[in-house]
């Protein structure tokens, strides 16, 4: 675009932006406005909130680790190789996106629960998901991975394939090329995708409740704790929501500033 004074169209768009900001941000203001800051802090003192927050951070870290570890090479494969049925595979990987979380929970149980398709095998291996912290991780991984996959795929797709070829001719094998050239080259998109997936995992509620329940210290993540205190202790729910918002907002902003700086 140009660097001239804005015309009516730009003015209208800025108006649209203001509208969008108001719509998306006022609810957040509304949450924060309802509780005095002092009270927010004091409400966190009670162990339930802190336990939930700690569990949320731990489980999302594990989920994100799994998503990144498996999703990164898979996204690269999908981005750089053409094969029959690729669109179908991509769609299958994206389906969790449209599944209502409760249905996702039932599905996870139907597949990996004690009576599920693979259930008894998993249970025997000590990897049962029903009412365990492992179930929390499974639910988060299930709902959040499409976010990472999609963003990572876009990042890999945008990478000049000649870079990987150059690396190969310089003596680096496929794995070394992936680790030393392909991943660093797509780092910006990967970090953004990871931030999105992390955000989605952090907010995950419905599937976790169905699969793992809401047991303090085992499966009561922050969103579940918020939900649990809705009717009884509304202020505590808001306080925890505010903390969740602050943490994830800071993370998203930090990632954006970091990758924005790193980009040319």
């Amino acid at each position: 675009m140009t660097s001239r004074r804005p015309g009516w169209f730009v003015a209208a768009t800025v108006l649209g932006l203001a509208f969008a900001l108001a719509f998306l941000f006022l609810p957040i203001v509304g949450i924060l406005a309802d509780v005095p800051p002092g009270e927010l802090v004091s409400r966190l003192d009670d162990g339930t909130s802190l336990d939930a927050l700690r569990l949320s951070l731990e489980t999302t870290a594990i989920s994100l680790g799994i998503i990144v570890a498996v999703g990164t090479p898979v996204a690269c494969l999908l981005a750089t190789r053409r094969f029959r049925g690729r669109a179908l595979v991509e769609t299958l990987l994206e389906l969790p996106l449209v599944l209502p979380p409760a249905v996702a929970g039932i599905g996870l149980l139907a597949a990996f629960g004690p009576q599920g398709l693979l259930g008894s095998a998993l249970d025997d291996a000590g990897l049962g998901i029903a009412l365990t912290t492992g179930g929390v991780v499974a639910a988060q991984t299930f709902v959040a991975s499409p976010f990472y996959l999609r963003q990572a795929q876009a990042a890999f797709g945008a990478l000049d394939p000649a870079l990987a070829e150059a690396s190969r001719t310089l003596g680096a094998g496929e794995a070394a090329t992936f680790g030393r050239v392909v991943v660093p080259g797509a780092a910006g998109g990967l970090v953004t995708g990871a931030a999105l997936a992390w955000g989605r995992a952090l907010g995950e509620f419905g599937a976790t409740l169905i699969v793992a329940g809401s047991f303090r210290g085992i499966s009561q993540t922050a969103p579940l704790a918020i939900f649990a205190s809705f009717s009884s202790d509304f202020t505590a729910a808001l306080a925890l929501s505010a903390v969740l918002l602050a943490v994830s907002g800071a993370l998203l902003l930090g990632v954006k500033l970091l990758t924005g700086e790193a980009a040319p």
Partner: protein
Amino acid sequence: GGGGAPTLKVSAAASLKTAFTPYGASFSPARAAFSFAGSDELAAQIRQGVKPDVFASANTRLPAQLYAAGKLERPVDFAANRLVLAVPARGGKVHSLAAAAQPGVKVVVGSSTVPIGAYTRQVLARLGPGTARGILANVRSEEPDVSSVVAKLTQGAADAGFVYVTDVRAAGGRLRAIGLPVRAQPRVVYAAAVVRGTGHPRQARAFVRGLLSGPGRRALLAAGFEPPPR
């Protein structure tokens, strides 16, 4: 679980939170961990083979079904509750049951598939046809659990809703209860059972027993529940 005591997983109806939390804290044979949600969700989980140690439901129907399906040991009734019409404590426009039937009032009820919704329908069926029709016409939402009904009221989205009296007490002064005529009051009975195949049958049974006497019963009464009918 730390300190050698096993962790006892208790899936309980959302409305039991205010009673079970203090009970759990004082329960010594095991560390009690609670998952509070709609009784039907918890039942769906158990139907899928998920095995908490104890299931406590806001009705007797779901435990009976699961017992029949072999998922639970024999359920026991452990508490009763009463329905009320709840309204926002301040600035509400509904001050009586009849007022809830006036046009323009927004009423929320539980979905007929969850206990609170089933009970609400029983109440309405026993109210006078005029009031019942007026209230039904005012229903704007059928919520999947009682917490959602409470949230609608505390958020000011609705003017009145049918909840348990214990919920009004738990809402900490933000809701006011309007009592229902005795003849309209349904039989609200909570039943609990040990889940079949639990890894801690001894502690689970102790937990259920505690609901009938001792600290569990005291906590229930303190939260506003009533003893189960004989």
